[in-house]
Protein backbone atom coordinates (compact mmCIF):
# COMPACT_ATOMS: atom_id res chain seq x y z
CA UNK A 1 0.00 0.00 0.00
CA UNK A 2 2.68 2.45 0.99
CA UNK A 3 4.78 1.46 -1.97
CA UNK A 4 1.95 2.04 -4.35
CA UNK A 5 1.33 5.44 -2.85
CA UNK A 6 5.04 6.21 -3.02
CA UNK A 7 5.18 5.49 -6.73
CA UNK A 8 2.03 7.44 -7.42
CA UNK A 9 3.31 10.46 -5.55
CA UNK A 10 6.78 10.18 -7.03
CA UNK A 11 5.45 9.99 -10.54
CA UNK A 12 3.26 12.99 -9.80
CA UNK A 13 6.23 14.94 -8.47
CA UNK A 14 8.42 14.13 -11.45
CA UNK A 15 5.77 14.97 -14.01
CA UNK A 16 4.79 18.21 -12.36
CA UNK A 17 8.43 19.15 -11.75
CA UNK A 18 9.11 18.64 -15.43
CA UNK A 19 6.06 20.72 -16.31
CA UNK A 20 7.30 23.49 -14.01
CA UNK A 21 10.31 23.85 -16.27
CA UNK A 22 8.50 23.17 -19.53
CA UNK A 23 5.47 25.38 -19.12
CA UNK A 24 5.44 28.44 -21.36
CA UNK A 25 2.96 30.15 -19.11
CA UNK A 26 4.72 31.07 -15.84
CA UNK A 27 1.47 30.83 -13.89
CA UNK A 28 1.08 27.23 -15.00
CA UNK A 29 4.67 26.65 -13.92
CA UNK A 30 3.99 28.03 -10.48
CA UNK A 31 0.88 25.92 -10.10
CA UNK A 32 2.77 22.77 -11.02
CA UNK A 33 5.41 23.78 -8.52
CA UNK A 34 2.76 23.72 -5.83
CA UNK A 35 1.67 20.28 -6.95
CA UNK A 36 5.26 19.13 -6.74
CA UNK A 37 5.66 20.57 -3.26
CA UNK A 38 2.49 18.99 -2.02
CA UNK A 39 3.65 15.70 -3.49
CA UNK A 40 6.92 15.96 -1.62
CA UNK A 41 4.96 16.70 1.55
CA UNK A 42 3.01 13.53 0.87
CA UNK A 43 6.27 11.58 0.62
CA UNK A 44 7.25 12.99 3.99
CA UNK A 45 3.95 11.79 5.37
CA UNK A 46 4.68 8.34 4.03
CA UNK A 47 7.95 8.50 5.96
CA UNK A 48 5.87 9.48 9.02
CA UNK A 49 7.74 12.75 9.15
CA UNK A 50 4.64 14.80 9.68
CA UNK A 51 6.41 17.84 10.97
CA UNK A 52 8.49 18.19 7.83
CA UNK A 53 5.47 17.51 5.67
CA UNK A 54 3.48 20.27 7.27
CA UNK A 55 6.39 22.68 7.23
CA UNK A 56 6.91 21.85 3.55
CA UNK A 57 3.34 22.84 2.74
CA UNK A 58 3.32 25.82 5.07
CA UNK A 59 6.56 27.38 3.88
CA UNK A 60 6.90 26.37 0.27
CA UNK A 61 3.40 25.87 -0.99
CA UNK A 62 1.83 28.40 1.34
CA UNK A 63 4.27 31.25 1.19
CA UNK A 64 7.10 30.91 -1.31
CA UNK A 65 5.01 30.07 -4.35
CA UNK A 66 2.56 32.78 -3.42
CA UNK A 67 5.47 35.19 -3.68
CA UNK A 68 6.40 33.65 -7.03
CA UNK A 69 2.88 34.11 -8.31
CA UNK A 70 2.86 37.61 -6.94
CA UNK A 71 5.97 38.46 -8.93
CA UNK A 72 4.71 36.73 -12.06
CA UNK A 73 1.49 38.70 -11.97
CA UNK A 74 3.27 41.99 -11.58
CA UNK A 75 5.54 41.18 -14.50
CA UNK A 76 4.45 41.50 -18.07
CA UNK A 77 3.37 37.95 -18.77
CA UNK A 78 3.25 38.52 -22.51
CA UNK A 79 6.85 39.65 -22.42
CA UNK A 80 8.09 36.86 -20.25
CA UNK A 81 6.49 34.31 -22.52
CA UNK A 82 8.92 35.33 -25.19
CA UNK A 83 11.96 34.47 -23.07
CA UNK A 84 13.71 31.51 -24.67
CA UNK A 85 16.35 29.42 -22.95
CA UNK A 86 19.77 30.84 -23.57
CA UNK A 87 22.86 28.74 -24.14
CA UNK A 88 24.44 29.92 -20.90
CA UNK A 89 21.49 28.97 -18.77
CA UNK A 90 21.20 25.59 -20.46
CA UNK A 91 24.88 24.89 -19.83
CA UNK A 92 24.69 26.15 -16.26
CA UNK A 93 21.58 24.09 -15.63
CA UNK A 94 23.15 20.93 -17.02
CA UNK A 95 26.28 21.53 -14.96
CA UNK A 96 24.28 21.98 -11.78
CA UNK A 97 22.31 18.85 -12.52
CA UNK A 98 25.52 16.89 -13.16
CA UNK A 99 27.01 18.19 -9.91
CA UNK A 100 23.94 17.14 -8.01
CA UNK A 101 23.98 13.63 -9.49
CA UNK A 102 27.68 13.38 -8.75
CA UNK A 103 27.16 14.53 -5.17
CA UNK A 104 24.44 11.96 -4.57
CA UNK A 105 26.57 9.23 -6.09
CA UNK A 106 29.51 10.31 -3.94
CA UNK A 107 27.31 10.22 -0.86
CA UNK A 108 26.23 6.68 -1.60
CA UNK A 109 29.80 5.67 -2.46
CA UNK A 110 31.10 7.00 0.83
CA UNK A 111 28.50 5.02 2.69
CA UNK A 112 27.28 8.03 4.58
CA UNK A 113 24.06 8.21 2.63
CA UNK A 114 22.95 4.71 3.31
CA UNK A 115 19.68 3.93 5.00
CA UNK A 116 19.81 4.82 8.64
CA UNK A 117 18.71 2.20 11.09
CA UNK A 118 15.09 2.64 12.06
CA UNK A 119 14.62 5.21 14.72
CA UNK A 120 12.75 4.09 17.79
CA UNK A 121 9.12 4.93 17.45
CA UNK A 122 8.42 8.02 19.49
CA UNK A 123 5.48 10.27 19.84
CA UNK A 124 5.38 12.97 17.23
CA UNK A 125 5.60 15.65 19.88
CA UNK A 126 8.83 14.20 21.17
CA UNK A 127 9.95 13.82 17.58
CA UNK A 128 9.51 17.45 16.81
CA UNK A 129 11.23 18.35 20.05
CA UNK A 130 14.16 16.12 19.10
CA UNK A 131 14.10 17.59 15.67
CA UNK A 132 14.55 21.07 17.06
CA UNK A 133 17.15 19.93 19.54
CA UNK A 134 19.28 18.28 16.87
CA UNK A 135 18.92 21.22 14.55
CA UNK A 136 20.20 23.71 17.08
CA UNK A 137 23.02 21.58 18.47
CA UNK A 138 24.43 18.96 16.13
CA UNK A 139 23.63 20.72 12.86
CA UNK A 140 24.13 24.23 14.13
CA UNK A 141 26.97 25.02 11.70
CA UNK A 142 25.10 23.79 8.66
CA UNK A 143 22.01 25.64 9.77
CA UNK A 144 23.93 28.88 10.15
CA UNK A 145 25.70 28.40 6.83
CA UNK A 146 22.41 27.93 5.03
CA UNK A 147 21.18 31.04 6.74
CA UNK A 148 24.15 33.03 5.46
CA UNK A 149 23.71 31.58 2.00
CA UNK A 150 20.11 32.76 1.94
CA UNK A 151 21.14 36.17 3.23
CA UNK A 152 23.72 36.46 0.45
CA UNK A 153 21.12 35.44 -2.10
CA UNK A 154 18.74 38.04 -0.78
CA UNK A 155 21.34 40.82 -0.95
CA UNK A 156 22.15 39.74 -4.49
CA UNK A 157 18.53 39.88 -5.49
CA UNK A 158 18.16 43.35 -4.06
CA UNK A 159 21.26 44.47 -5.92
CA UNK A 160 20.04 43.02 -9.21
CA UNK A 161 16.55 44.37 -8.82
CA UNK A 162 17.96 47.84 -8.26
CA UNK A 163 19.48 47.63 -11.72
CA UNK A 164 23.05 47.35 -10.48
CA UNK A 165 23.86 51.03 -10.22
CA UNK A 166 21.12 53.57 -9.79
CA UNK A 167 20.34 54.22 -6.18
CA UNK A 168 17.46 56.13 -4.81
CA UNK A 169 19.24 59.33 -3.65
CA UNK A 170 20.72 59.90 -7.09
CA UNK A 171 17.45 59.59 -8.85
CA UNK A 172 15.95 62.02 -6.36
CA UNK A 173 18.69 64.47 -7.18
CA UNK A 174 18.03 64.08 -10.87
CA UNK A 175 14.40 64.79 -10.29
CA UNK A 176 15.29 67.94 -8.39
CA UNK A 177 17.46 69.16 -11.20
CA UNK A 178 14.70 68.59 -13.67
CA UNK A 179 12.33 70.42 -11.42
CA UNK A 180 14.64 73.40 -11.25
Amino acid at each position, binding site marked *: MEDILFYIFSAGILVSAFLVVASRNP*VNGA*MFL*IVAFVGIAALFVLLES*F*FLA*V*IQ*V*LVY*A*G*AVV*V*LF*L*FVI*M*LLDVEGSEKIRPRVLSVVAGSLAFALMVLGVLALFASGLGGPEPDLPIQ*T*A*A*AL*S*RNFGYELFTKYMLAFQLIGFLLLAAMVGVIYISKGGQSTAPQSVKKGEEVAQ
Partner: protein
Amino acid sequence: MNYLPVLIALIKAVLMVAVVVVIAAYAVLAERKIAGWIQGRYGPNRTAFPVIGYIPILGKMLTRLGVFQPVADGLKFIFKEDPIPGHVNLVYYFLAPCVAFIPAMTTMAVLPFGEMDGQPLVLANLDIGMLFLLAVSSLGVYGIILAGWSANSKYPFLGGIRGSAQMISYELAMGLSILPAFLWANAPGSETGMSLFNVVQSQDQLWMVIWQPLSALIFLVALFAETNRLPFDMPEAETELVAGYNTEYGSMKFGLFFVAEYTHIVIGSGVLTVLFLGGWNFFPGLPSPWPGGWVGGVLSTLWFLLKVFTVVFFFMWIRWTLPRFRYDQVMRLGWTVLLPLALANLVLNAIFIALFDNWFV
Protein backbone atom coordinates in the same frame (compact mmCIF):
# COMPACT_ATOMS: atom_id res chain seq x y z
CA MET B 1 -8.66 -4.28 5.23
CA ASN B 2 -11.35 -3.12 7.57
CA TYR B 3 -13.48 -0.48 5.96
CA LEU B 4 -15.64 0.29 8.95
CA PRO B 5 -13.38 2.93 10.60
CA VAL B 6 -13.00 4.63 7.23
CA LEU B 7 -16.76 4.66 6.79
CA ILE B 8 -17.31 6.06 10.28
CA ALA B 9 -14.65 8.68 9.71
CA LEU B 10 -16.33 9.58 6.44
CA ILE B 11 -19.73 9.92 8.06
CA LYS B 12 -18.24 12.05 10.82
CA ALA B 13 -16.52 14.24 8.27
CA VAL B 14 -19.66 14.73 6.20
CA LEU B 15 -21.60 15.52 9.34
CA MET B 16 -19.09 18.08 10.46
CA VAL B 17 -18.90 19.70 7.02
CA ALA B 18 -22.67 19.93 6.96
CA VAL B 19 -22.79 21.48 10.41
CA VAL B 20 -20.05 23.98 9.63
CA VAL B 21 -21.61 24.96 6.30
CA VAL B 22 -24.93 25.53 8.02
CA ILE B 23 -23.20 27.59 10.68
CA ALA B 24 -21.47 29.54 7.91
CA ALA B 25 -24.80 30.11 6.16
CA TYR B 26 -26.35 31.40 9.35
CA ALA B 27 -23.25 33.48 9.94
CA VAL B 28 -24.17 35.23 6.69
CA LEU B 29 -27.63 35.84 8.05
CA ALA B 30 -26.17 36.99 11.36
CA GLU B 31 -23.94 39.37 9.50
CA ARG B 32 -26.89 40.89 7.68
CA LYS B 33 -29.00 41.10 10.80
CA ILE B 34 -26.22 42.62 12.89
CA ALA B 35 -25.36 45.07 10.12
CA GLY B 36 -29.00 46.04 9.99
CA TRP B 37 -29.39 46.44 13.72
CA ILE B 38 -26.21 48.46 14.08
CA GLN B 39 -27.41 50.74 11.29
CA GLY B 40 -30.91 51.09 12.67
CA ARG B 41 -32.46 48.75 10.13
CA TYR B 42 -34.24 45.45 10.50
CA GLY B 43 -32.18 43.25 8.24
CA PRO B 44 -33.76 40.41 6.28
CA ASN B 45 -37.20 39.75 7.74
CA ARG B 46 -39.44 38.79 4.81
CA THR B 47 -38.48 35.34 3.64
CA ALA B 48 -41.16 32.92 4.80
CA PHE B 49 -41.09 29.19 4.54
CA PRO B 50 -44.33 27.69 3.21
CA VAL B 51 -45.59 25.69 6.18
CA ILE B 52 -43.50 26.81 9.11
CA GLY B 53 -43.92 30.45 8.26
CA TYR B 54 -47.69 30.18 8.75
CA ILE B 55 -47.54 28.88 12.31
CA PRO B 56 -49.28 31.67 14.23
CA ILE B 57 -46.64 33.26 16.45
CA LEU B 58 -43.55 31.15 16.02
CA GLY B 59 -43.65 31.30 12.22
CA LYS B 60 -44.04 35.04 12.24
CA MET B 61 -41.18 35.38 14.71
CA LEU B 62 -38.87 33.15 12.73
CA THR B 63 -39.70 35.04 9.58
CA ARG B 64 -38.99 38.36 11.25
CA LEU B 65 -35.67 36.94 12.42
CA GLY B 66 -34.88 35.95 8.86
CA VAL B 67 -34.34 32.34 9.79
CA PHE B 68 -35.37 31.18 6.33
CA GLN B 69 -33.25 33.67 4.51
CA PRO B 70 -30.18 31.40 4.11
CA VAL B 71 -32.40 28.83 2.38
CA ALA B 72 -33.53 31.43 -0.10
CA ASP B 73 -29.97 32.68 -0.54
CA GLY B 74 -28.71 29.17 -1.17
CA LEU B 75 -31.44 28.45 -3.69
CA LYS B 76 -30.67 31.71 -5.38
CA PHE B 77 -27.01 30.79 -5.71
CA ILE B 78 -27.93 27.48 -7.26
CA PHE B 79 -30.58 28.66 -9.67
CA LYS B 80 -29.13 31.94 -10.81
CA GLU B 81 -27.75 32.21 -14.29
CA ASP B 82 -24.06 31.50 -14.29
CA PRO B 83 -22.41 33.92 -16.67
CA ILE B 84 -18.86 33.24 -17.73
CA PRO B 85 -17.03 36.28 -19.09
CA GLY B 86 -15.58 35.85 -22.53
CA HIS B 87 -11.93 36.44 -21.85
CA VAL B 88 -11.22 34.54 -18.67
CA ASN B 89 -8.67 31.80 -18.29
CA LEU B 90 -11.20 29.03 -18.04
CA VAL B 91 -9.12 26.43 -16.17
CA TYR B 92 -8.17 28.71 -13.32
CA TYR B 93 -11.50 30.47 -13.42
CA PHE B 94 -13.19 27.19 -12.50
CA LEU B 95 -10.39 26.05 -10.27
CA ALA B 96 -10.29 29.15 -8.08
CA PRO B 97 -13.59 28.68 -6.19
CA CYS B 98 -12.68 25.07 -5.44
CA VAL B 99 -9.23 26.06 -4.27
CA ALA B 100 -10.80 28.64 -2.01
CA PHE B 101 -13.40 26.24 -0.70
CA ILE B 102 -11.42 23.06 -0.07
CA PRO B 103 -8.77 24.38 2.38
CA ALA B 104 -11.48 26.20 4.30
CA MET B 105 -13.27 22.90 4.75
CA THR B 106 -10.13 20.88 5.38
CA THR B 107 -8.94 22.89 8.35
CA MET B 108 -11.86 21.81 10.44
CA ALA B 109 -10.51 18.26 10.51
CA VAL B 110 -8.04 19.05 13.27
CA LEU B 111 -10.16 21.46 15.26
CA PRO B 112 -11.30 19.92 18.54
CA PHE B 113 -14.73 21.11 19.57
CA GLY B 114 -15.42 19.24 22.77
CA GLU B 115 -14.35 16.70 25.31
CA MET B 116 -15.83 13.42 26.35
CA ASP B 117 -14.36 11.49 29.23
CA GLY B 118 -10.98 13.12 28.74
CA GLN B 119 -10.94 12.31 25.05
CA PRO B 120 -11.13 15.06 22.40
CA LEU B 121 -14.10 15.37 20.10
CA VAL B 122 -12.29 15.96 16.85
CA LEU B 123 -12.02 14.35 13.45
CA ALA B 124 -8.26 13.91 13.64
CA ASN B 125 -6.35 14.63 16.79
CA LEU B 126 -2.99 15.44 15.22
CA ASP B 127 -0.04 16.14 17.41
CA ILE B 128 0.95 18.92 15.08
CA GLY B 129 -2.61 20.11 14.64
CA MET B 130 -1.79 23.79 14.85
CA LEU B 131 0.85 23.49 12.14
CA PHE B 132 -1.51 21.52 9.95
CA LEU B 133 -4.11 24.20 10.40
CA LEU B 134 -1.69 26.96 9.45
CA ALA B 135 -0.38 24.99 6.49
CA VAL B 136 -3.76 24.21 5.01
CA SER B 137 -5.27 27.61 5.60
CA SER B 138 -2.25 29.20 3.95
CA LEU B 139 -3.28 27.37 0.77
CA GLY B 140 -6.56 29.25 0.77
CA VAL B 141 -4.84 32.31 -0.64
CA TYR B 142 -4.50 30.53 -3.99
CA GLY B 143 -8.24 30.75 -4.42
CA ILE B 144 -8.05 34.50 -4.24
CA ILE B 145 -4.94 34.83 -6.38
CA LEU B 146 -6.23 32.54 -9.09
CA ALA B 147 -9.66 34.12 -9.08
CA GLY B 148 -8.10 37.54 -9.43
CA TRP B 149 -5.70 36.53 -12.13
CA SER B 150 -7.91 34.29 -14.23
CA ALA B 151 -10.73 36.85 -14.43
CA ASN B 152 -8.52 38.88 -16.74
CA SER B 153 -9.98 42.13 -15.52
CA LYS B 154 -8.39 44.89 -13.53
CA TYR B 155 -10.42 45.00 -10.34
CA PRO B 156 -10.25 41.29 -9.57
CA PHE B 157 -6.59 41.40 -10.41
CA LEU B 158 -5.89 44.20 -7.96
CA GLY B 159 -7.96 42.36 -5.38
CA GLY B 160 -5.98 39.19 -5.92
CA ILE B 161 -2.63 40.96 -5.67
CA ARG B 162 -3.63 42.81 -2.54
CA GLY B 163 -5.09 39.70 -0.96
CA SER B 164 -2.01 37.60 -1.54
CA ALA B 165 0.35 40.29 -0.24
CA GLN B 166 -1.78 40.79 2.82
CA MET B 167 -2.08 37.11 3.63
CA ILE B 168 1.64 36.48 3.35
CA SER B 169 2.35 39.49 5.55
CA TYR B 170 0.04 38.50 8.34
CA GLU B 171 0.80 34.80 8.26
CA LEU B 172 4.18 35.53 9.82
CA ALA B 173 2.80 37.59 12.64
CA MET B 174 0.12 35.00 13.21
CA GLY B 175 2.54 32.13 13.38
CA LEU B 176 4.81 34.02 15.76
CA SER B 177 1.95 35.15 17.96
CA ILE B 178 0.82 31.63 18.79
CA LEU B 179 4.28 30.37 19.69
CA PRO B 180 4.33 31.90 23.20
CA ALA B 181 1.07 30.16 23.88
CA PHE B 182 2.60 26.86 22.94
CA LEU B 183 5.74 27.65 24.87
CA TRP B 184 3.69 28.06 28.01
CA ALA B 185 1.52 25.08 27.25
CA ASN B 186 4.61 22.95 26.80
CA ALA B 187 5.67 23.25 30.40
CA PRO B 188 8.72 21.14 31.15
CA GLY B 189 7.76 17.55 31.29
CA SER B 190 4.44 17.93 29.50
CA GLU B 191 3.75 16.30 26.16
CA THR B 192 1.53 19.03 24.70
CA GLY B 193 3.45 19.45 21.47
CA MET B 194 1.46 21.26 18.83
CA SER B 195 -1.74 19.46 19.66
CA LEU B 196 -4.75 21.71 19.89
CA PHE B 197 -6.50 19.41 22.32
CA ASN B 198 -3.60 19.53 24.73
CA VAL B 199 -3.52 23.30 24.51
CA VAL B 200 -7.10 23.43 25.63
CA GLN B 201 -6.45 20.99 28.43
CA SER B 202 -3.55 23.12 29.65
CA GLN B 203 -5.96 26.04 30.05
CA ASP B 204 -8.22 24.36 32.59
CA GLN B 205 -7.18 26.82 35.25
CA LEU B 206 -6.27 29.93 33.41
CA TRP B 207 -7.26 31.03 29.91
CA MET B 208 -4.37 31.93 27.72
CA VAL B 209 -5.91 35.30 26.88
CA ILE B 210 -5.42 36.40 30.47
CA TRP B 211 -1.92 35.14 30.65
CA GLN B 212 -0.85 36.18 27.15
CA PRO B 213 -3.03 39.14 26.18
CA LEU B 214 -0.51 40.52 23.72
CA SER B 215 -0.29 37.24 21.85
CA ALA B 216 -4.05 37.05 21.81
CA LEU B 217 -4.34 40.56 20.41
CA ILE B 218 -1.78 39.96 17.68
CA PHE B 219 -3.42 36.68 16.81
CA LEU B 220 -6.81 38.34 16.68
CA VAL B 221 -5.61 41.10 14.38
CA ALA B 222 -3.80 38.64 12.16
CA LEU B 223 -6.90 36.48 12.11
CA PHE B 224 -8.92 39.43 10.84
CA ALA B 225 -6.37 39.92 8.10
CA GLU B 226 -6.19 36.25 7.20
CA THR B 227 -9.95 35.94 6.91
CA ASN B 228 -10.15 39.19 4.92
CA ARG B 229 -12.60 40.72 7.33
CA LEU B 230 -13.45 44.31 7.15
CA PRO B 231 -10.74 46.46 8.57
CA PHE B 232 -8.51 44.35 6.32
CA ASP B 233 -10.77 43.35 3.44
CA MET B 234 -8.24 44.35 0.82
CA PRO B 235 -9.10 41.64 -1.70
CA GLU B 236 -12.74 42.61 -1.81
CA ALA B 237 -12.81 46.31 -0.94
CA GLU B 238 -16.13 46.91 -2.67
CA THR B 239 -15.87 50.67 -2.42
CA GLU B 240 -12.68 50.62 -4.41
CA LEU B 241 -12.57 47.42 -6.41
CA VAL B 242 -16.22 46.71 -7.25
CA ALA B 243 -16.16 43.31 -5.59
CA GLY B 244 -12.46 42.58 -5.71
CA TYR B 245 -11.33 39.13 -6.67
CA ASN B 246 -14.82 37.75 -7.19
CA THR B 247 -16.11 40.56 -9.39
CA GLU B 248 -16.41 38.30 -12.42
CA TYR B 249 -18.01 35.43 -10.56
CA GLY B 250 -21.68 34.73 -10.29
CA SER B 251 -24.12 32.15 -9.08
CA MET B 252 -22.75 29.14 -7.19
CA LYS B 253 -19.12 29.92 -7.99
CA PHE B 254 -19.53 33.13 -6.11
CA GLY B 255 -21.42 31.14 -3.48
CA LEU B 256 -18.39 28.94 -2.93
CA PHE B 257 -16.23 31.97 -2.27
CA PHE B 258 -18.86 33.29 0.04
CA VAL B 259 -19.23 30.10 2.03
CA ALA B 260 -15.45 29.72 2.15
CA GLU B 261 -15.10 33.19 3.62
CA TYR B 262 -17.60 32.52 6.36
CA THR B 263 -16.20 29.06 7.02
CA HIS B 264 -12.85 30.74 7.53
CA ILE B 265 -14.46 33.02 10.06
CA VAL B 266 -16.11 30.18 11.92
CA ILE B 267 -12.97 28.03 11.95
CA GLY B 268 -10.82 31.03 12.82
CA SER B 269 -13.10 31.83 15.74
CA GLY B 270 -12.80 28.21 16.78
CA VAL B 271 -9.01 28.37 16.71
CA LEU B 272 -9.04 31.59 18.70
CA THR B 273 -11.31 29.93 21.24
CA VAL B 274 -9.11 26.87 21.45
CA LEU B 275 -5.85 28.76 21.79
CA PHE B 276 -6.77 31.70 23.95
CA LEU B 277 -10.28 31.38 25.31
CA GLY B 278 -9.90 28.06 27.01
CA GLY B 279 -11.86 26.01 24.51
CA TRP B 280 -14.68 24.25 26.31
CA ASN B 281 -13.26 25.01 29.79
CA PHE B 282 -15.94 26.61 31.90
CA PHE B 283 -14.49 29.78 33.41
CA PRO B 284 -11.00 30.69 34.52
CA GLY B 285 -10.37 29.30 37.97
CA LEU B 286 -13.50 27.17 37.93
CA PRO B 287 -13.39 23.47 37.17
CA SER B 288 -15.42 22.39 34.17
CA PRO B 289 -18.78 21.10 35.39
CA TRP B 290 -19.31 18.74 32.44
CA PRO B 291 -20.40 15.28 33.58
CA GLY B 292 -18.97 12.18 32.00
CA GLY B 293 -20.40 10.35 29.05
CA TRP B 294 -22.06 11.85 26.00
CA VAL B 295 -23.96 14.42 28.07
CA GLY B 296 -20.67 15.98 29.04
CA GLY B 297 -19.56 15.81 25.42
CA VAL B 298 -22.64 17.64 24.22
CA LEU B 299 -22.49 20.21 26.99
CA SER B 300 -18.82 20.93 26.39
CA THR B 301 -19.46 21.21 22.67
CA LEU B 302 -22.29 23.63 23.25
CA TRP B 303 -20.16 25.70 25.60
CA PHE B 304 -17.44 25.73 22.98
CA LEU B 305 -19.89 26.75 20.28
CA LEU B 306 -21.18 29.54 22.47
CA LYS B 307 -17.70 30.95 22.74
CA VAL B 308 -17.19 30.56 19.00
CA PHE B 309 -20.41 32.40 18.24
CA THR B 310 -19.38 35.18 20.57
CA VAL B 311 -16.16 35.55 18.65
CA VAL B 312 -18.06 35.43 15.36
CA PHE B 313 -20.31 38.17 16.67
CA PHE B 314 -17.22 40.13 17.60
CA PHE B 315 -16.01 39.73 14.02
CA MET B 316 -19.22 41.25 12.72
CA TRP B 317 -19.37 43.89 15.38
CA ILE B 318 -15.89 45.06 14.35
CA ARG B 319 -16.85 44.96 10.69
CA TRP B 320 -19.73 47.37 11.13
CA THR B 321 -17.72 49.63 13.39
CA LEU B 322 -14.37 50.21 11.79
CA PRO B 323 -13.59 51.63 8.37
CA ARG B 324 -11.27 49.86 5.99
CA PHE B 325 -7.55 50.44 6.24
CA ARG B 326 -5.71 51.81 3.31
CA TYR B 327 -3.53 49.24 1.60
CA ASP B 328 -0.25 50.84 2.67
CA GLN B 329 -1.55 51.09 6.23
CA VAL B 330 -2.29 47.39 6.18
CA MET B 331 1.21 46.63 5.02
CA ARG B 332 2.81 48.98 7.53
CA LEU B 333 0.78 47.55 10.39
CA GLY B 334 1.72 44.03 9.41
CA TRP B 335 5.41 44.46 8.85
CA THR B 336 6.43 47.29 11.16
CA VAL B 337 4.10 46.81 14.09
CA LEU B 338 2.72 43.34 14.41
CA LEU B 339 5.76 41.40 13.25
CA PRO B 340 8.32 43.12 15.58
CA LEU B 341 5.83 42.98 18.38
CA ALA B 342 5.24 39.28 17.90
CA LEU B 343 8.97 38.65 17.69
CA ALA B 344 9.67 40.61 20.84
CA ASN B 345 6.84 38.86 22.59
CA LEU B 346 8.22 35.49 21.58
CA VAL B 347 11.80 36.28 22.61
CA LEU B 348 10.81 37.77 25.94
CA ASN B 349 8.58 34.83 26.74
CA ALA B 350 11.31 32.41 25.75
CA ILE B 351 13.86 34.15 27.99
CA PHE B 352 11.39 34.24 30.83
CA ILE B 353 10.61 30.56 30.47
CA ALA B 354 14.31 29.70 30.30
CA LEU B 355 15.03 31.65 33.46
CA PHE B 356 11.98 30.20 35.17
CA ASP B 357 13.05 26.71 34.16
CA ASN B 358 16.62 26.95 35.32
CA TRP B 359 16.39 28.96 38.52
CA PHE B 360 13.06 28.23 40.09
CA VAL B 361 12.33 24.66 39.20
